[in-house]
Structures are given as structure tokens and as C-alpha cells.
């Protein structure tokens, strides 16, 4: 059972979120049509773990870039232009590009892992949330807590409250 309250005003929505959080509701989703820093602060999201993926990707990219250039140069020994076989300056350019390529790809991966997307299953959602509505979703509330959550949402100024089955 999930309770979904939809707001027209950002401030009301944030008030409801704050109150729900302080009343001990943990599984709150705050749906908004634009990123709201306040909402992220209420949920205490802090620094995202995505940054670890970026760092890991960049390091792996740097190592594999230089390794690729070196290893492929050693497959066949083909001297060119009087240069050494393992020529560091040009290989550093390859390293540089691979650092960025892997950094970007790992950041993308990190985004998918951390955000839980893609999630094509049905989840509590109002289609107007991508336009101009702010939606609070409380999930996993015990049966006796449902009324309390509903009251908080209504008091904050929600125009519309729905009960939706979870995971449908």
C-alpha cells in the first residue's frame, strides 16, 4: 500500500516531505518536475556514490589505455620513423583519451546502478509529475500509520490523495 499526495506548490510539497520525514516515515519518494535541492537535503542524500564509479573508470581507463598501446605494439615489432617500439609520449595521448572514455562509460554505469534505472515496471506515479505537479509517495507504511501519513499530506495542502497498490 502506498499513499500518493500531489501538490501544486513547491513549498507545500517540501513542508509535507519534511513532516513525513520527521514523523519517521522512511520510504518516501519525492517526485518533482525539476531537481529540487531542498528535497534532496530532506532525504539527506549527501554525496552521491556515482563519483566512485567515475574515479574507478578513469583509473581503469588510464591503465588499460597505456596497456593497450604497449601490448599491441609488442604483438608485431614494427619500428617506424626511428621511434622506440614503446614510445611513451604518443601512448600518453591514447592513455588520456581512454581515461576519459572509460570515465564517462563508468559514470553512466554508476548512474544506472545508483538510481536503479532502467525500471520499466509500474511504480506509483502521476503523469503530471513531469509537467507541473509535485508528488509525495509514502511506501511501506504500516496499516496503522497510513491514516497519519495521509493527515500530514492533507494538512500540508495536497489537492489530491490516492492509495495505490505497491508494485503494480
Amino acid at each position, binding site marked *: 500500500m502506498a499513499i500518493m499526495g500531489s501538490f501544486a506548490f513547491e513549498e507545500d510539497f517540501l513542508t509535507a516531505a519534511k513532516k513525513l520525514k520527521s514523523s519517521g516515515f522512511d520510504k518516501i519518494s519525492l517526485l518533482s518536475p525539476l531537481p529540487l535541492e531542498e528535497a534532496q537535503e530532506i532525504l539527506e542524500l549527501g554525496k552521491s556514490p556515482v563519483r566512485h564509479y567515475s574515479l574507478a573508470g578513469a583509473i581503469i581507463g588510464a591503465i588499460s589505455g597505456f596497456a593497450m598501446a604497449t601490448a599491441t*605494439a609488442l604483438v608485431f*615489432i614494427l619500428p*617506424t*620513423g*626511428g*621511434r*622506440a617500439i614503446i614510445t611513451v609520449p604518443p601512448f600518453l595521448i591514447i592513455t588520456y583519451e581512454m581515461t576519459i572514455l572509460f570515465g564517462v562509460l563508468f559514470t553512466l554505469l554508476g548512474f544506472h546502478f545508483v538510481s536503479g534505472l532502467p525500471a520499466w515496471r509500474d511504480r506509483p506515479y502521476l503523469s503530471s509529475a513531469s509537467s507541473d505537479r509535485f508528488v509525495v509517495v509514502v511506501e511501506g507504511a504500516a496499516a496503522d500509520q497510513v491514516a497519519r501519513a495521509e493527515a500530514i499530506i492533507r494538512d500540508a495542502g495536497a489537492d489530491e490523495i490516492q492509495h495505490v497498490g505497491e508494485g503494480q
Partner: protein
Amino acid sequence: MSTFVEKLRQYRKPGYYDKFDYHWTMTIDLDRCTGCEACMVACQAENNLPIVGEKRFAENREIKWIRIERYWEGEYPDVKMRFIPMLCQHCDDAPCETACPVFATYHNQDGLNTQIYNRCIGTRTCAVYCPYEVRYFNWFTYTWDEPLEQQLNPDVTVREKGVMEKCTFCIQRIRIAKDNAKDDDRRRVRDGEVVPACVQSCPTEALVFGNSNDPEAKVSKMMKNPRGYKVLEELNTTPSIVYLTKVHS
């Protein structure tokens, strides 16, 4: 492990080779050169160079691995003409080799700057990087009218469109000479055994070819001539061709 480290260290060395097996070198005595262009014709016949025709020639798309450059000196009537045969200099530090993304050109163990036609994808970067302008591109697939295709050299490939080509120092003749040396249980090719087409056809013997690693070879002796110089030496491409300057009276 130690051999691995040793190898890696070796691979880090600029130039990579301490010494080539053979260092094929040519000397061109400009004092002897008459500008007769026999070398150009010989090269054309030996290496299956296409005859591009009048129209393509006017478009500056002819292919001649060796060419005689003409330079005029002075004003009419006191005018002199100088010749200089220009062919691939087989530079030890060739700018063209580093440019190729697919290793279609590289330096082999004989000190030759080789061109592998079927690996070439036609970026033409090597021709831009070459300061001697001795790389020629196949702008079209050229054909030989009957019965001219009968005179093609079977030892040399015919190149298709989109491929770069250049002087190989008649690598097919070098290969044959090396094979013969092996068959005779000799390990080395004798001096004078390899003669590229241009050298063979030079009526004044202005061109001398040989292995400059061998101090007894004729070419090594010619290189010591005080008249010797290398073209565009200041670019540090270390060419394998030594020119002997003309003696001015």
C-alpha cells in the same frame, strides 16, 4: 623475467635496431648524371608503374618512383640546367612511417622503408609528411591495354586505386638475391649482386647501390667521397641516399 625486462628496455630504445642486417644504400653522382631519364623508364618497366595517360599527366597525377628534377640556374643567355634524380630516400628516421595508422609503411631489418600495398587504406598522410615528395598515390585503378599487360613484371604486384606506392629499392631483386645466397649456403649477399632497375640502366654509372654495412662494398667507398651530401639533411630524416655534388669548373 630478466630477458623480459631486457627486451622491454630494448624496445624503449629510439631507432630500435643497433645495426641493420643490411643497410641498403645508394649513392648518386650528380657529376656523372646526364639527366637521360633511363632510370625512370627502367623503373617503369620493372615495377609495373601504370601509364596514366596524357590527361592524368596534365593533372599532375603521374606515377614515377624515380624522377629527374630540373633546376635552372642564372638568366638567359647565361643559363645552366642542373639535374637531381629524386627517389625515396629510405630515411632511417622517416617522417612518413609514424604517420600511418595501419602500419602500411614501416622500417624493415634491411633498413628499407617498406610500403605494404594491401594494408594501405589511403589516408595519404605519409605523402604529406614526406619532405621529398616521393610517394605516389593511385588516384584511379589503371589498366594496361592489350598486349601491354603481357610485359608486367610477375614479381611485383599491380596496385589498385586508393593505395600509396613508392620506390622500394626493387625489393623483389633484394629478395631473390637473398634467396640465392641462402641456396648457395652463403649467409650474406655479395656486393654487386643486388642491382635495382635504375642502377642497372644508368649508362654513366652515376647510381651505385649496395650494402653500406659492408665497408668493402663499392657504395661504402663512394659514401666517403668528400663531395657527398644528403638532401634536406637539416630535417634530420637521416636519408639512405648520398648525393655526390657536381664539380664546378
